């Protein structure tokens, strides 16, 4: 057995890689459960890819057959119902993990030097994931699929001068149709999951391993930070345990309450002549949907919505404190928890029709969302922090 290992090692850096990145990879001992959500997201990615491959065996990407092919999967394919429900409910788990993973980043200053690039790659993954889920949602060709795609592709018509032509090019037709379905199917099953999310994921892990994980104290390993343990077996077992726990909850929904996550009007085939009364995107888009609708100007709303995501990229430069972790930053701690709460409020507002008190709340919440980022550069001026990296360690 070890002879085989040596034979391979001479020709391929197998043992070297396994030791460097898994069995001897130093990981801070003090990581708490907020550090589990990255691997959890990876687990959901695995579920989506495997179930997606199987669905592609039976799904027909043609407007005449798409809807019925999914009914075929649900009724005739052995365990088709299970594969479909896993794939339809998976994104909820995936975004749940991703949002908490990002929240960890916000709270513990994971975006600060030397992890800026890691943070930006993560944002790229997040954007790719939003696009992936959006394109996937068109595929069932239900009422919400069709109208959701119509509304979101229409967003791009807000671009000055080239907007309308761009939307026609994007759709491949003057309205969402067979051309749109075909290209969304192609990108959803090939380029975006494997090329972008898979490729970006490799970059994300590479960037991580270059600098090592942060930790709740915010003091890095090379500055007399926390003690370390090898990643394998300690964090492999911790990660597997937590994934199993969350998957138990996930499977509860998949097996006992699948329709909780399936929009009822999407059980009707798409009708280009009937717009549903209540167009709602999936829950993970709701906060941004609320931001979009709180600005009473077409281009302004679109810019605010995309801006809300892009502003995250500036965090490494907006946050000027040398202290990483909010544990030792009393002002930032409060502001950040309010930010999380505000995000949930925005999500709730996004679900509701945009008028009356809801619109007012949405506008206040939108203002606070951006205010958080505007305030951050000024916070160090008056914040009494703890746990500054000691001068002799810098």
């Amino acid at each position, binding site marked *: 057995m070890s002879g085989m290992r040596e034979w391979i090692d001479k020709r391929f850096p197998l043992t070297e890689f396994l030791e460097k990145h898994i069995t001897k990879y130093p990981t801070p001992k003090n990581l708490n459960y907020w550090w589990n959500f990255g691997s959890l997201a990876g687990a959901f990615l695995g579920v989506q890819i495997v179930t997606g491959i199987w669905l592609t*065996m039976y799904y027909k990407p043609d407007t005449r057959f798409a809807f019925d092919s999914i009914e*075929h999967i649900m009724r*005739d*394919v*052995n*365990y*088709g119902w299970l*594969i479909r429900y896993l794939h339809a409910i998976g994104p909820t788990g995936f975004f749940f993990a991703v949002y908490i993973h990002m929240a960890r980043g916000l709270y513990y200053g994971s975006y600060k030097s030397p992890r800026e690039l890691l943070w930006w790659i993560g944002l790229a993954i997040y954007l790719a994931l939003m696009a992936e889920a959006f394109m996937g949602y068109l595929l069932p060709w239900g009422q919400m699929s069709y109208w959701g795609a119509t509304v979101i592709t229409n967003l791009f018509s807000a671009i000055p001068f080239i907007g309308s032509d761009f939307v026609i090019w994007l759709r491949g037709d003057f309205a969402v149709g067979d051309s749109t379905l075909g290209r969304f199917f192609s990108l959803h099953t090939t380029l975006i999951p494997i090329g972008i999310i898979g490729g970006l994921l490799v970059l994300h892990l590479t960037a991580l391993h270059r600098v090592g994980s942060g930790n709740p104290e915010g003091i890095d390993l090379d500055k007399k930070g926390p003690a370390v343990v090898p990643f394998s077996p300690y964090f492999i077992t911790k990660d*597997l345990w937590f994934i199993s726990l969350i998957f138990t909850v996930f499977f509860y929904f998949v097996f006992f309450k699948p329709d909780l996550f399936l929009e009822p009007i999407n059980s009707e085939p798409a009708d280009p002549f009937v717009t549903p009364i209540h167009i709602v995107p999936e829950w993970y888009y709701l906060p941004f949907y609320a931001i979009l609708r709180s600005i009473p100007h077409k281009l302004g709303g679109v810019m605010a919505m995309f801006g809300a995501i892009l502003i995250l990229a500036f965090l490494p430069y907006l946050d000027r404190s040398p202290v990483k972790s909010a544990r030792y930053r009393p002002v930032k701690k409060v502001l950040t928890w309010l930010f999380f709460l505000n995000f949930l409020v925005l999500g709730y507002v996004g679900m509701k029709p945009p008028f009356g008190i809801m619109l007012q709340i949405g506008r206040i919440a939108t203002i606070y969302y951006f205010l958080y980022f505007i305030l951050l550069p000024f916070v160090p001026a008056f914040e009494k922090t703890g746990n500054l990296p000691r001068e002799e360690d810098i």
Partner: protein
Amino acid sequence: MEDEKVDAMGRRDFLTITTATVGACGIGASAIPFIKAMSPTKDIIAAGVMDVDISGIKEGEFRIIMWRKQPIFILKRNSEMLEKTNRTDISSLRDPASPEERVKRPDLLVCIGICTHLGCIPSWQPEKIPGLDQPGFYCPCHGGKYDTLGRRLDGPPPENLHLVPYEFIDDSKLRIGTEKFAGYSENIRKIQELPKA
């Protein structure tokens, strides 16, 4: 002290092995739905049972119907055909079979119309098979010859035409196939070896 150490090692190994075993069972169990999902779907299985109307079939009439995407020969045999096949020497056949082993009713042949040589559909010769003195089936691809019971008479085919399960619902209806029966690949050439419904 040493006892404690030995105990601690034992505990760790036990936990590792049991967790790994349960994990392996979990992975196996998770794989099952995906493997089963690739098997034929329920509509394909249901299509395995098909009713055919044979009320109008005349003496000497030959029909082909499609069942599970495979051609099925239905031939109403007349008295000359019956006589001819009864007189055939069974031991001279490459794939010996008596008429009782080939058909449920002597006057109706129901078999799979795929040549057992390389898979072409043999052509019905109501008068004479080329080179022989009786009606039957002649395969144009490589010259295989079958009698009106689908038994191989001449040419490269190794076996008689394969059989498919069938039942007479009444005088006008023939029910072909069972849910799980695959067809040609099951390689059944005697009525008695066909699966029950």
